[in-house]
């Protein structure tokens, strides 16, 4: 079962930035990269729970604002030699610019 929810419009998310979606299970950070791709991850760094949504976004990565761990937005894994992983979620944008997030069927 997958459940897609509308969360807003593409232009609501700054380029090389992120916005937060608050859910009963915690925050999800929705990133928009320089090449206009979207990625959604738990808003908690695997290191010390830093809010990833506030990090500097570069390529398809984000640097955690607390201790500068780099996280791959596509997989949620920390960039070596750091180790750890955050959960990722499917996210898509329609032709009309509406952003949808899938929380129910989360990728591992």
């Amino acid at each position, binding site marked *: 079962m997958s459940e897609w929810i509308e969360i807003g419009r593409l232009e609501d998310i700054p380029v*090389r930035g992120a916005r937060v979606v608050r859910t009963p299970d915690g925050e999800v950070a929705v990133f928009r990269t320089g090449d206009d791709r979207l990625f959604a991850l738990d808003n908690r760094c695997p290191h010390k729970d830093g809010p990833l949504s506030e*990090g500097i*976004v570069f390529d398809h990565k984000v640097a955690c604002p607390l201790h500068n761990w780099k996280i791959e937005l596509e997989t949620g894994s920390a960039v070596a030699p750091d180790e750890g992983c955050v959960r990722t979620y499917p996210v898509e944008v329609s032709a009309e610019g509406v952003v949808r997030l899938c929380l129910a069927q989360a990728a591992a």
Partner: protein
Amino acid sequence: MKEKLVLIGNGMAGVRTLEELLKLAPDLYDITVFGSEPYPNYNRILLSPVLAGEKTIDDIILNDRAWYEENGITLHTGRTVVKIDRRNRKVIADDGTEAEYDRLLLATGSHPIVLPLPGNDLDGVVTFRDIHDVERMIEAARKYKRAVVIGGGLLGLEAANGLMAQGMDVSVVHIADWLMERQLDPYAGELLKRSLEERGMKFIMPAVTEAILGDKRVEGVRFKDGLEVPADLVVMAVGIRPNVDLAKSAGLYCERGVVVNDTLQTFDPRIYAVGECVQHRGKTYGLVAPLFEMAKVAANHLAHLGYARYEGSVTSTKLKVTGIDLFSAGDFMGGEGTEEIVMKDAGHGVYKKLVLKDNRIVGTVLYGDTVDGAWYFQLMKDGTDVSEMRDTLMFGQHHLGDSGHGGENAAAAMADDMEVCGCNGVCKGEIVEAITKKGLFTLDEVRAHTKASASCGSCTGLVEQILAATVGGDYDASPKEKPLCPCTDFTHQQVREAIRERRLTRMNEVMRALDWRTEDGCPTCRPALNYYLISTWPAEAQDDPASRFINERVHANIQKDGTYSVVPRIWGGVTTPAELRAIAEVAEKYQVPTVKITGGQRIDLLGVKKEDLPAMWADLNAAGFVSGHAYGKALRTVKTCVGSEWCRFGTQDSTALGIQLEKVTWGSWMPHKFKMAVSGCPRNCAEATIKDFGVVCVDSGYELHIGGNGGVKVRATDLLTKVATPEEVIEYCCAFIQLYREEGWYLERTAPWVERVGLNYVKQRINEDDEGRRALYQRFLESQKYAQQDPWAQLAQEASEKKKFIPLKQVV
């Protein structure tokens, strides 16, 4: 289709070049590697500890087979290339394997020299070069007792030490009058000999070997003077010779080594060569540090970047015999035109010699206490004028005054469980283990793997010492001027100059003009570029919030739990009951959990939720406050004492001057945070002499102090000058800030900046050049027109900006 690159020689130099190349251009080549030995790339310099039984072969593998696979590299081990067909651009191995190339990299290393003596082909005569040799020695040590090592140099002594550790009775034969004559002077050689003798090593020297005796297996050694000694194992460790056989047979020009130019190309421009097989500007190298420098340059050219040049290396040596500390570099013998500073303490087995020429270190030998080896070596490489520290030079770096904590502790003397990095809780033992187990050679690698010195950086000197002590002369000392970040090879200085001279006003222009390797930059270069752009072109350049650290984006300090702290500006630290009441009301209204007085005499409201920030700012704005910039690379606070208005000792109105300074300079973006203070008399209650810019009032005027720091590394200020009026204080202060803004590197505080450019330079620009000072002052005021707007008011009023502080969506 990809180009084809073939590497001949699967050793440290060649594979390091591939690693550097993959960093620069991961997808440029199909790579094939040929290695004669049956192993993947291993750390040849750690063969001695393997022989001594301190490490296993697995410990010293640098790149396992999985690494080659992950990088799509075809690896042929146990296959020796026997022919290079330059016309058809292919190489052929001894088993018939062929590989075509567009570019070829030779890293064939060197051969151990085998003395042309009768009996040199007997069983039990070995050299000391590769894993196979080590295995033969370990096997011999199991069955036999007596070993003779020919050669009392670095390699011979390491072999002898290893064989002793394996239980053999070892004699070292040496041709010269003292040991390691190419690295040590006679005195140090004698100390070394004595301490090795104490461990049971025997020496036959000076002696020239005439023959190796025996029928099938070695039985003894005979010398020119007729003396014969029995032996079951003979190790020849008399030196190495660049392996040029293949290059020669391919018609490449060789002398002692394969001759290469500064781009590491041989006489065939498609063929590059690195490592011990190379002869560059008449020199050959047998240590690892130069090989790595070559690898960087060769990779730069193989990656089609084409601007790096190899200009030769200065090398140092360290003996890898556990328990013996020995360091040597440069012209350690001295001679005509040189001076020597010598310290001898035979009782403690300590000997230190520095050779100086024109007040610069040109060589050093250290025995017994090598803690400062890396430091002397750096002074030598940098050509630093040591006349001012000559008196204390011999006692080492920690005897130089005013060095704070930066490298004060002697790394070698530290116990393994002593903490090195206080930020990340990393002990010496962990760092040493990471260096040896993971084969790390650079500070950056140690930072990435251990996090030591990766936060505040105050232990960097110590970590570098540990690195140098652990890997010795093979330590890849970081260059003085480093590239800004891994996205570019240009330094901060070069980037700044390019932005100014080529009138670059946008970040993507800079990245394009300077051939940035990444599309998006990285968290290191983007904030730096953003600062350089807005400080160089205040009117033209557009600030890029996405390239700022979160604190400067939301104008508050992020805390460990993701909340923020808010500090309203309180000019000069002087406030009123009404202001305090307003702050108290805001604190209660937003349920601020902690209210704290800061070190800079301001009030910190901690634990504020991000979505509350805009409303809180609006309330603070309404009460007359603006942002305190406690979060920014900008003017933080001006700390003051009460001065002549109240204090019975005060000489001037320090609070009024502090307020005035703060009102002129607030809001300006700088390379790093900037703190000021004004003290009303020389008792200096505002601690102005550890600030970036400090004013100490005296009866006759104002002393201006610069470049102080009370943080990571305590540094007292330097006196810039003394002026007579508050107007002059303002002008000098703004001119100083502007000079720092224009010429400091991003994240460089004024303390290291002043040390880098020199106090005299700052005095010249500010004190002696009246016109220049006024121009700096004017440029500062001009840039303030764009900077001095309260970011709180701006953000709190713009609806589109305010939105970014709240969640995009609340899912229930």
